[in-house]
């Protein structure tokens, strides 16, 4: 997903105290980390606090990081621990904004009366987001990290602290749950 050499040089620069490099790291990672935090704690304000705290905490300890390549897993773990500290890791409610997606005008029939492809796509994305937000905690966490965040399975395993096989198993169970819950797939829980 990332150019490893460029990424490592950014982390190295930040390690030396380069704030501009750290800002670029923030720009690249903030959405992933915020979304992950929100999916753990269930509310936007706490997720913002956790995201900010994670970046500040990572800056302080960055000079002692063993390898620049470990940064992404490491800062995700900081986010996770902060969510645990906030006592909100098991929050079940849909995080504000995460399941809603962009709003659009549904009163916009095409002249030929056929469904608009873009509209269907947005509806599908909305339904998938909502179904993800409603997943059991363990399943939602791996789906958010792996699919929405683009984090490789091995890295997800390190972030959560479980074997990679467990991550795959949770992804599979999540896939089943989502299939059952998304009505147009003909599942039994539509």
């Amino acid at each position, binding site marked *: 997903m990332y150019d490893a050499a460029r990424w490592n040089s950014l982390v190295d620069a930040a390690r030396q105290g380069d704030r501009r490099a750290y800002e670029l790291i923030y720009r690249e990672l903030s*959405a*992933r980390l*915020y979304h992950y935090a929100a999916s753990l704690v269930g509310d936007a304000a706490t997720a913002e606090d956790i995201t900010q705290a994670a970046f500040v*905490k990572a800056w302080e300890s960055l000079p*002692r*990081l063993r390898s620049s390549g470990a940064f992404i897993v490491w800062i995700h773990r900081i986010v996770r621990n902060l969510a645990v500290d906030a006592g909100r890791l098991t929050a079940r409610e849909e995080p504000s904004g995460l399941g809603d997606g962009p709003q659009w005008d549904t009163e916009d029939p095409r002249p030929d009366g056929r469904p608009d492809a873009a509209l269907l796509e947005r509806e599908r994305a909305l339904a998938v987001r909502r179904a993800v937000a409603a997943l059991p905690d363990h399943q939602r966490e791996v789906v958010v990290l792996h699919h929405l965040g683009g984090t490789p399975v091995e890295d997800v395993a390190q972030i959560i602290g479980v074997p990679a096989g467990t991550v795959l198993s949770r*992804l599979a169970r999540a896939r089943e749950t989502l*299939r059952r819950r998304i009505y147009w797939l003909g599942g039994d829980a539509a």
Partner: protein
Amino acid sequence: MNCDDIQPLLADLAVGALPEPRQGPVREHLARCESCRMAFGQLCLLGSWLDEIPPTGPARDLWPSIAAALRPRKRTLGQRISGYLGLSPGWAWAGVACACAVLAWGGLRGGDIPRAPELPAVVVAEADEDADLLSRWSAQASLSGGPVGRYAAAAALSVLPESAAEEGLE
């Protein structure tokens, strides 16, 4: 294997969690069962839909608050020397080591060697500061038996068995 045996394995196959030896019978069944094939297709399609959803970022830019909270990075002695000499840290330390070796050799031989130019005052002062910090940190560490200063605070914040703030750190 019938459909009831196969259905629970389809999601594992879709995410790559089904071991190679168990894939054969499932794939054979899929080749001849329309219903299971459709279910498998849906599970795979769902994976690509999930991959298409971008993570939702915060509603406001958090960087200004983060930037305001970042303390200036204290440079290490090696970084300062290398900055002063215009070398990478590795070469700077190599140079320092060579200089020490030459001085020690000269001392053993008792011969005259030219006096090394003095380091500028600022480097000497910073070096003293680093040495002072190091000695204070090691003294505190030996008293507390753990990380010191703000790292200790960061470690204390974490409740998981292994602190994230300390993992991956030297």
